[in-house]
């Protein structure tokens, strides 16, 4: 078994603490806001100048002047604020945004991350990815554990151009939760039905298995039979 994309988002959401200020990348990260426990206050930041962002606007209720960084119409929660780009990136670069949940193409054992240049892309685009990777203390990566072709994305060394060196703190995949430590990667949790050896077999970089490493506690709805496992 492994996690669905929503399962990965669900698992990350559990780890975002009360009162955290969180920027969500596009893709799996966008799903995270759906799974914050209702009794927990987490504040979502959008690069284009929003703090306290709510969910997507319902059809017919879009505010034409209110989109998120992915250009989707969004809502605001009570206590939200809006501001300009310099202020928004002061929040990011100045370390005020406490967590960023980002997709990645590759992560290395030392926390290096590559997520801005896709192989074969025609036009490069960086957006706010580097500002986030350099500025935010807790970079949480969400991604499928291996590529569509089954190749590991957690590597000894990144092969793609880096977004930022040594920036990743935790990796959440459909197979595992991995912590990046000064001594290398530490396997904290594995998907239900998996075990550390299976996770390692899909990971190029060596994983140390944490003393309290355990199977993820995750609802069945977020689990699927994993094609490559």
């Amino acid at each position, binding site marked *: 078994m492994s996690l669905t994309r929503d399962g990965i988002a669900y698992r990350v959401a559990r780890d975002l603490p009360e009162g955290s200020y969180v920027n969500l990348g596009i893709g799996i990260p966008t799903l995270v806001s759906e799974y914050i426990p209702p009794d927990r206050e987490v504040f979502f930041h959008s*690069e284009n100048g929003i703090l306290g962002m709510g969910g997507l606007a319902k059809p017919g209720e879009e505010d*034409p002047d*209110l989109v998120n960084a992915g250009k989707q119409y969004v809502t605001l929660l009570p206590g939200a604020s*809006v501001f300009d780009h310099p202020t928004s*990136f002061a929040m990011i*670069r100045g370390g005020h945004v406490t967590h960023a949940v980002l997709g990645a193409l590759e992560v290395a054992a030392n926390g290096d991350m590559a997520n801005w*240049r896709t192989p074969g892309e025609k036009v*490069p*685009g960086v957006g706010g990815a*580097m500002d986030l990777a350099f500025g935010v203390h807790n970079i949480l990566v969400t991604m499928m554990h291996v590529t569509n072709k089954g190749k590991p994305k957690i590597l000894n060394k990144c092969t793609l151009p880096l977004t930022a060196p040594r920036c990743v703190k935790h990796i959440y995949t459909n197979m595992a939760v991995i912590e990046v430590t000064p001594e290398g990667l530490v396997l904290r949790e594995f998907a239900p039905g998996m075990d550390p050896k299976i996770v390692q077999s899909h990971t190029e970089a060596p994983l140390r298995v944490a003393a309290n490493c355990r199977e993820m506690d995750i609802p069945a709805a977020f689990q699927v039979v994993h094609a490559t496992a």
Partner: protein
Amino acid sequence: MVNKTLATCREAVASVFDGATILLGGFGDPGLPGQLLEALREQGAKNLSIVHNGSGGGTHALGGLIHDGRVRKLTASFPSHPGNTSFQDLYMKGQIDLELVPQGTLAERIRSAGAGLGGFFTPTAAGTELAAGKETRVIDGRDYIFEKPLHADFAFVRAYRGDRLGNLNYRMAMRNFNVPMATAAKFVVAEIDELVPVGAIDPEDVHTPGIFVDHVVEVVRHPKYLEITTEGR
């Protein structure tokens, strides 16, 4: 009596010259001065250097200007609009230059220009491909790169309300690049939804004081610019 209002977008873009550098506000649709862009497209100036977060899609607004071959250089953070675009076509043919700048660095370079600074050191991109050729410096143990201010001949921004003194008020997420851009060009024009009497915008609600603005043009918001776009970040 000071009167910065103009009746039409056509007048507002009349002085744009071939080879001009233009700051173009907006992020997605909010704050994008779409009708100034359409007027600029009709106006005809070419070899333009445009500074904008993205590259636009479709064949209207910025996408249209690029489609018409009027832009020689784009300075942007996210020009990789999904799908085939005019920018992509021209870029692949080597017919348009791209200066790729991280989004926060882009905003800060523009602010730096408007604030009369000579540049700044930022950690963003230090040690990456985007720092190639840039001056680096270790400050208090951390790596930084030097970034210069980004000045321009023109800035086109969009606001919600404005008055004849050029005071601007933005709704919701419209401020984005518009606030710094309005400070960083020799000639600044704002497309606004509503021209209001002087004093109608509370002093605490003026997001771009008139000191930064040369002209305001009231337009009727075109439904075309309200379409939901799917542009990525």
